[in-house]
């Protein structure tokens, strides 16, 4: 056992962090700067980070779940307003199905409520997520994949990753087939990546709040010197660290364990990270006081991103139900 990141993994983390630091949003006004976000998009695309889960010549992914999670975490930490989760999950679906790579940018569509991959025949209310730049979204058609065309996305809860509610589309079938184990494996990856995204959002939200607490003065002192504020931020940091440990394990499990074990590891991580992320992002808003409740402050952008990532493929309730299922306590009654 050695769960330290390898030197290559650390280098990947640093290069994603640098790209986001250089081209990511620094204020909420930066989200309107299309030129900036196009440059960030080009940097992420050019580095090949969206193809980490595409198949190599033997059908294996080009990189493990750990590398994909490293990218997801750093993008979220910097509130990167570019697609990553959607195209990565689409590439993983095609790889598992043995389907050829998509000819244009694509994402995936999830069932209403975002709890699972959408199924053709039940597309009412289905939502294509992380649709920036995507022309189509993959859905399930029995044991095959199908693609639906997308029109431009809307910004729903998350200001950094637009979604599209599908409007009774017609799907065209894609070659290749997926089994139950493939869907478990794919769901495990999706949960692991959303956990990494939540960890990144938590880190960003805590950093933002600590900076503010050191600079904002009341009663003649920095508010970060007050024990009440210190304890809020300390708890937020500790929750973030616990989340990092479970998220790292979930990312490793995607490729290292059986599909059902990978899914169980992902469910533990998602329950923990989703609960922690909401509290941590709320803490960041609280520490910012009145400013934290204005559109202008980035604190709510972290919370919004975390709310979307939590719901994708199941948040606290569905994840606890999966954990119980794995321990033979059927159904997780009332938790879904």
């Amino acid at each position: 056992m050695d769960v330290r990141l390898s030197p290559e993994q650390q280098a990947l983390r640093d290069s994603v962090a640098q790209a986001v630091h250089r081209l990511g949003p620094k204020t909420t006004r930066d989200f309107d700067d299309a030129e900036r976000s196009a440059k960030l998009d080009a940097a992420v695309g050019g580095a090949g980070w969206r193809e980490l889960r595409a198949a190599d010549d033997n059908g294996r992914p080009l990189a493990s779940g750990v590398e994909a999670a490293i990218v997801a975490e750093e993008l979220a930490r910097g509130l990167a307003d570019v697609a990553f989760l959607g195209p990565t999950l689409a590439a993983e679906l095609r790889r598992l199905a043995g389907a050829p790579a998509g000819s244009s940018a694509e994402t995936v569509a999830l069932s209403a409520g975002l709890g699972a991959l959408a199924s053709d025949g039940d597309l009412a209310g289905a939502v294509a997520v992380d649709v920036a730049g995507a022309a189509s979204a993959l859905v399930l058609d029995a044991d095959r994949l199908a693609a639906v065309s997308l029109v431009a996305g809307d910004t729903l809860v998350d200001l950094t990753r637009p979604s599209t509610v599908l409007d009774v589309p017609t799907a065209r079938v894609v070659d290749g087939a997926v089994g139950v184990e493939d869907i478990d494996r794919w769901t495990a990856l999706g949960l692991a990546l959303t956990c990494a995204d939540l960890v990144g959002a938590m880190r960003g939200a805590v950093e933002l709040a600590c900076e503010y607490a050191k600079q904002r003065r009341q009663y003649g002192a920095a508010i970060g010197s007050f024990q009440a504020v210190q304890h809020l931020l300390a708890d937020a940091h500790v929750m973030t660290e616990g989340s990092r440990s479970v998220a790292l394990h979930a990312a490793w499990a995607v490729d290292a364990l059986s599909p059902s074990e990978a899914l169980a590891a992902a469910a533990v991580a998602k329950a923990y990270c989703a609960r922690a992320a909401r509290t941590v992002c709320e803490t960041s808003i609280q520490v910012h006081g009145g400013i934290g409740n204005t559109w202008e402050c980035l604190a709510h952008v972290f919370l919004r991103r975390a709310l979307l990532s939590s719901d994708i493929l199941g948040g606290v309730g569905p994840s606890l139900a999966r954990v119980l299922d794995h321990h033979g306590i059927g159904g997780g009654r009332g938790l879904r």
Partner: protein
Amino acid sequence: MDFADSAPEAAFRQRLRDWVRDNNPGLPASSTDDAYWRGQAAWHRSLYDAGFFGLSWPKAVGGHELPCVYDAILDAELAAADAPPRPSLGYLVQGILEHGSEDITRRFLPGIVNGRDRWCQGFSEPDAGSDLASLRTRADRFGDEFVITGHKVWTSYSDDADWCLVLARTDHDVPKHKGISAFAVPMRQPGIEQRPLKMINGITKEFGEVMFDGARVPAANMIGEPGDGWALAMTVVSHEREPGELGFVARYAKTVNHLVGEVGEHPAEYDSEQVRDLAWAIVEAEMLRLHVSRRLSERLDGISHGPEGSVDKLLMTWTEQAVGHAALSIGRAGHGGRDDTPLKVYLYSRAQSVMGGTSQIQRNLVARRILRLPA
């Protein structure tokens, strides 16, 4: 990055698993029954004699000099076999290793590690809890001996201890952190009186107070130099905050396994609220296991101890108290003549946010030393 066993780790795990299957003493749940502590000494010696204790410590003191991640394997296998957890002595060993002379480590550590000598820790006093440095127990030198006078409290296992690691003031003219020295004091002598304290879950073997009234200790039993006591205390408490050093992952996983078994056997008896409490206990215990794996891996290049111990202490506390809440919920507080072990587990869990430094103190340390918030 790999959570899986290497080949030597897998071989160790198998050897351990085979041994535990035949050597589990089947003690009651730790800290819920005085019978546990009575059987614990034999369990310690049995674990040591089989080569499964002190895995990462120096061979010279009875350890095995294995990478520290082997402790994670030990905890996982003990929990899976429903065996007692490993004795939580790492903080004493690390404190003495780091601050004691060669003579001190040679005389005292082998007996601690092999379980033949039992130790307690005389740090807290009635008026020196979180503010430990204001302790008033004094050690006055007379020739080759020091004479100790004072009152220690929350001294775990003082009634069975052969030795006590005592912090006492040896210099009254310097700032309070600088006048403290540490001693290995023999417990079985006339100048020492100890009284067990009954904890809120009813056990009497774990909490005690010790009165020193003219107790004698050879000057050669001072650990470190005069005035080094505070540095030793900080080493000890930093290790005392670490679940990887304490082996508590096994304790929590064992309780969770019992609760899962109970609900699995009688699923119709539990409502969704109780089952939800159980699910959180499973998630928290698993989080702590993985977090300890991460921490132990970070130390593969050598032990380094910083303020991260306070992060780990808070995570451990949240885990123990989530497991305690699940035990309360599933055990229905022992109503109706049921086994009251879960109630005792719950009540004992309240101590975790106090012992080894309160959660409030840990939050202060995280805020100042990690987040660098201003004083």
